[in-house]
Every structure is written in C-alpha cells, then in structure tokens.
C-alpha cells in the first residue's frame, strides 16, 4: 500500500479513537513528548501500561475471588489502574475505574465484579486499538514515510 494511503488510514483511525472516547488529550501530550531523540517514547510508555494493567487485572481477579473480599486491597489496585490509564489517556478504562472505586467504598461485591468485567473489556479493547495504531505507524515508516502530526 502506498505511503499516502497508509497515512490517510492512520489519521482516520486515530481520529476515531479520540471521537469514540478510547483516547483523550493525555495521549496527545505523550505524542508531544516524542521526538527524534526519543522516537519510541509513546510505545515504551504504552508498553509499561500494558504490563502494569495485566498484572493489576490478575491481582484484582484473585482478590475478588477470595471468600472474604479485602475491599481496601481492591481499592488500592484500582487506584493504580486508574492512575496509569489516566497517564496514557486511556479514557474509557479510567472511567470504569472511577465507578469501580465507588463500589469498593460501599463494599459492594457484585458491583465490583461487574466493574472488573467492564474494565477488562475496556482494557482489551484499547490494547487492541493501540496495537493496530502502532502497526500502522510501523508500516508507514517501513514504506519510507513519516508519521503525520495530528
């Protein structure tokens, strides 16, 4: 595929992510911090987000699966997940975390279980979207083009 077509695709795709609320302005902030001296900054930070999140989601699943639920522990995990999703602009994930923390405060196990399902769903969605975005960028670079600034 031609560079121009690929670039068009990337712009379309990125716009849709913002439009549909998957990403917010914080992602743009990250892009602004990337330059020739730090060309992989966004991918590096997002990779850390993936690692952090998967670890936290595992911990949450385990903790919520206990006979006696430790809501303080759950809240601490969700607090971390909220922080890291906010740091990369993963808006939908962050929003579920806000609701999740409310259920923790209430000690509402059912509410927490629902939120865990939702946050996993949103996380895998945004992960998928970002991986697609990075692949598109790679294709453009390999075809000799440059990433359009948005």
């Amino acid at each position, binding site marked *: 595929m031609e560079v121009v077509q690929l670039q068009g695709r990337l712009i379309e795709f990125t716009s849709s992510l913002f439009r549909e609320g998957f990403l917010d302005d*914080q992602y743009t*902030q*990250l892009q*602004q*911090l990337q330059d020739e001296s*730090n060309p992989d*900054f966004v991918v*590096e*930070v997002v990779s*850390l*987000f993936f690692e*952090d999140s998967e670890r936290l989601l595992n911990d949450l699943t385990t903790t919520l699966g206990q006979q006696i639920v430790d809501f303080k522990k759950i809240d601490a995990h969700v*607090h*971390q997940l*909220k*922080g*890291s999703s*906010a*740091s*990369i602009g993963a808006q939908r994930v962050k929003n579920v975390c806000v609701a999740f923390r409310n259920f923790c405060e209430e000690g509402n196990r059912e509410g927490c279980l629902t939120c865990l399902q939702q946050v996993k769903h949103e996380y895998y969605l945004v992960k998928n979207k970002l991986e697609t975005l990075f692949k598109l960028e790679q294709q453009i670079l390999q075809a000799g083009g440059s990433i359009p600034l948005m």
Partner: protein
Amino acid sequence: MAIVADSQYHVLAVDDSLMDRKLIERLLKTSSYQVTTVDSVSKALEFLGLLDGQQHEIDVNLIITDYCMPGMTGYDLLKKIKESSSLKDIPVVIMSSENVPSRINRCLEEGADEFFLKPVRLSDMKKLRPHILKGKSKEQQQQEEQQQQQQQQQPLLNTCSNGTLLNTCSNGNKRKATDEGLSPERRRPRFSTSHSLL
C-alpha cells in the same frame, strides 16, 4: 543576578510507579532540566544525604514527589526536607492523582511550593522555574551571609591574643592567627596563587 541556563538545574523526582517516573523524567528533560529519578522516599533520603547524618555536597534545585507511595509518603519526605537545615530551602512540589483539598492544604502548610494534579502535563513544567529561581536566590543569600560572617571574623583575629576574646574564636581561627600573622592583606595573595597551597 546572573541568568543561568536551565540545563544547569537539577531536579530530583520521586515516584514508585515506573510509568510515572518515565513520564516525569521526559517532561523535565524536555524542559531542559537535569534529572535524577528514584522509586522511594528512602532512596530519595539516601540520595540527599539525610540517612547517614553527614554533610553532603548535593546540588539539587528542586524536588518533585508523588504523594501516595508505599512506606514513607511524599508528605513524609517533605517534612524531612523542611526539618533539615541544609535542605530546607530546596523547593518541593507534590504530585497526586487525587484532588483532595485537605491533602493539598496540609502539604502547602508544611512548606510545599506547588501541588500538581496527575497526570502532569508539559504546561505544568513552566510553573517550576520561579520556585527554582527563588531557591537559588535564597542559596545565594545564605552564601553571602556566610562570606560576610567570615569577613567579620578577621578583625577578631587581631584581638585573639587578648585573653578575654579567645573563647569567641574557633580553633581554626586561632591556628590562622598564629600561622598567617594578623594582617588581612597577607591572606589575599595566598588564595590567588596555587603554589602556596602545596
């Protein structure tokens, strides 16, 4: 006051999250600061030389720290810094992902210069410079005061031979009084030529 380039300023960033450390480091470096990051308050205290009780030559112009950390919090770090005579004039900025007014006030009351809500943005970096410059001018003031004190002690050297004033001189001064003679003029050539120090 001399205008110095930002690349001379050194910021210590404290955060237990690797992601956030990476972010704050990039933000600070983009703003031309030299950066050291640590992942805990105890590592920060170690770096600042507060753990071994000895005097260190630490050149840190600003400390930016996360509030919520396992073990000692950013608030604990802030208190330790303000309690230290050598470090209390270093500006401290607290970061937090939670907007809790009582927390913010507590930090400001304890002497924090600024509070950033996470995620920290590029536009927040501009807010650091005024605090660093204020810290620098306090440092200069302190140095000038110390120099003035040293100069004031010179006439005292002349009177050290007078028994009543011996108590006010430190041992160092007493040695100087006997080694260098009592004329202040003699001292200047000594400091400006390197061979005399051998």
